[in-house]
């Protein structure tokens, strides 16, 4: 059970999670998705730690994962506050909306014009309706198009 191949397999899984998280942080522009990617990196680390813990028959790795969980929770709480603050300022969840620290002589980076997408409008996940159909609130329908 505590063989070297087992350790290696688990470490590879951790490495893949970590790398994917890194790509997500670097590439995705949505602040929320960036945080999901960061959490994913933490997951990769957690898997590696537990694998080592098992390999060495030591509790240290698992204890450390508990602290990783704790710190991740704190980080999420604080980060979401900032994301909300950022959203309330710009109305967007775009990481590229914040460019004030650029060199004064440089212009703002602006996205190129995007071709029309046929995936619009976005389809959100739905549940199969069950039970009595609730009465629809007309006001709410006016305010929101979806959900």
């Amino acid at each position, binding site marked *: 059970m505590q063989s070297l191949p087992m350790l290696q397999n688990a470490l590879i899984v951790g490495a893949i999670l970590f790398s994917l998280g890194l790509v997500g*942080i*670097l590439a995705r522009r949505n602040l929320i998705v960036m945080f999901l990617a960061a959490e994913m990196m933490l997951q990769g680390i957690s898997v590696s730690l537990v694998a080592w813990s098992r390999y060495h028959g030591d509790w240290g790795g698992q204890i450390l994962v508990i602290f990783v969980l704790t710190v991740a929770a704190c980080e999420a709480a604080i980060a979401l506050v900032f994301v909300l603050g950022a959203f309330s300022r710009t109305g967007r969840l775009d*990481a*590229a909306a914040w*460019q004030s620290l*650029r*060199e004064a002589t*440089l212009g703002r*980076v602006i996205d190129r014009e995007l071709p029309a997408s046929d995936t619009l409008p976005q389809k959100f996940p739905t549940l199969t309706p069950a039970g009595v159909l609730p009465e629809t609130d007309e006001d709410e329908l006016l305010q929101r198009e979806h959900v």
Partner: protein
Amino acid sequence: MQDISPATLLVLVPLLPLVGAIITVAFGRRLGSRAHLPAVISIAAALACAVVLLSGTARLVGDGHGSPARPVEMITTLWQWATVEGTQPFSIPVALRLDPLTATMLTIITSVGLLVAIYSIGYMHGDPGYPRFFALVATFVFSMAMLVAASNFLLVYVFWEAVGACSYLLIGFWFRKPEAAKAAKKAFLVNRVGDFGLAVATFLLWMTYGTLNFHDTLSADGVIMPGILGQTRLADASGYVGGLVGTAICLLLLLAACGKSAQLPLHVWLPDAMEGPTPASSLIHAATMVTAGIYLIARSCPLFVACPDALTMVSIVGATTALVAGLIGTVQNDLKRVLAYSTISQLGYMFASLGTGTLLGFTAAIFHLLTHAFFKALLFMGAGSVMHSMGGVIDMRRFGGLRRIMPITAATFLVGSLALAGVAPFAGFFSKDEILASLNSRGWPDAHHDDHHATARKGDAAHFQLAAWSPDAGQQENELRPLSRLDSPATFRTLFWMALFTAGLTAFYTFRAVFMTFTGPTRVPEEAGHHAHESPPVMTVPLIILAIASAVSGWLLFSTHALADFLAATPSFTAPAVVATAVKPVFHWDLALQGTLAAAIGIALAAYGHLGRRSDGPQMERFLGPLETLFARKFFLDEIYSALVVKPLEALALVAAVFDRRVIDGLVDRVAMIPLALAAVVRQFQSGLLQRYALAGVVGVLAIVVALAWQLRG
């Protein structure tokens, strides 16, 4: 006191004022109006030590009486400042010396210093810089004591600069006043010229003699290393280099002395130095520091005796300065400036006396130094007392008849003036008489030798003439030294008449000042307000003490020949060439008569011009005509210096400034453009986008990891 060794006392004399200065600096603010205590107490203790040393030295000299050439000296080496091994080993011992000359100087410095410090308690009362003043005075006493006690040319140089620094700080004591700041700067810069001379002279001395010590030292292997003024070299007839190098050394030392002692052509700083507080003028710019030049030349007199031309130059510079400064002094209206020019003039007297190269001349210079220290300090303090009660006004035309308001000041000032004018039996009469006698003996070599020293004097005179005229003895030297005929009797005859005329001038301007200030109808400037009264006792008591010293010191020291005999035991004065010029001390009635006559004429002229009625200068103008302008503008020397030195230097500075701004700064700007250009490239990457920065960081880390993995492969 018996238990304390002379060496300890010798160290204590400079050390105590230094400790006093440090205490004043450290606790001055806390001491407040008692900030004078450390300085006064420490200088008083230093005076006590100096007096004990003086009496001890005098006892030593007295024991060896009968053999007049027996030198008395004591060396205390405290530590080695620097030691350089090698083929020509070089070491700078911090060595203090005690000999009659040093003991005399130490006593003068500490006694005048003490009186000035006590006087300053009253004069500087209430000044915001009260502790600073006493710290500076104590530092000055320390530096000056070290200067005269140092037994090494390098140490002399160090403390030469130290007293210069103290002088600078005291002239600029009221540094918020632009004139004071300017005067301090001028004094500092003019002194630099002289200090440059001393520095180069020190280098030349090291090159020539291989040491800078005054005294003989014992090397590690027991060989005696002769010092420049050590007894080994003094006893050696050919111990001192003449010729071009020797003359160069002596002229450079003379330049240094001219700077410090305010002789032509470097005298211009002293009159302006009167911007400082009057006690500082009294101590530094009249009694002590300005005599450093006299001390230096007297100390190194064997060097000068080996170079007759340089020696004669000393006399010529001195007598010319005495005359010029006396002439300028006759038309000054500022009481302190009259005294300043008088100081320059009297210092010129001392130089003229030194330049005769006879034992009489050297001792007379030191004698005059001593009496001058007393009566000039007295006169300056008197002027300060007048200034104190006149609300800072020092222009003689604006007050008069002050003898009714401040009788003690007037009486003591009169005593000082009589001493300065050379009226018998006050101090100046005797010392000035000796100076005139020394000049006279060189001018008329055969006139006064009706005693048993005649042979020696004649031989000596023949020696001088030989050096000047003999074709076989001076053949080669004549080619090298075209100024050889400088030290002829004719030169000294001229100098004698100049000195005699100056004596009359001295009496004239001194009593002009006395009459303008203290006689006539009582007039007080508005600035004085209700403060026009006699100064407090703390100021008048030092005046009285100095007046007594000015009155009796000359007669005491002359009639007993104590000072001359005492000083003759100074190692420098025991060089064979100096001893050969010794004469039996006599009182020259003819010279005394001439001097008194000159003084009487001067006083009479002053009385004619200024006694009894108001004299605001028109008489002088009418009397002198265009010469008055010449004197009042100080022979246009400031203007000449401005045109010859200051203006070209300013032009050079302007060129340098333009060069600096255009070329140097231009180069710097070009160099600065390189990082700017590089930055312009890198700046393009500063997009402010968070994720680009993160990407750059990750790529960098990966590059490093790949490089490491590549290196660790296999």
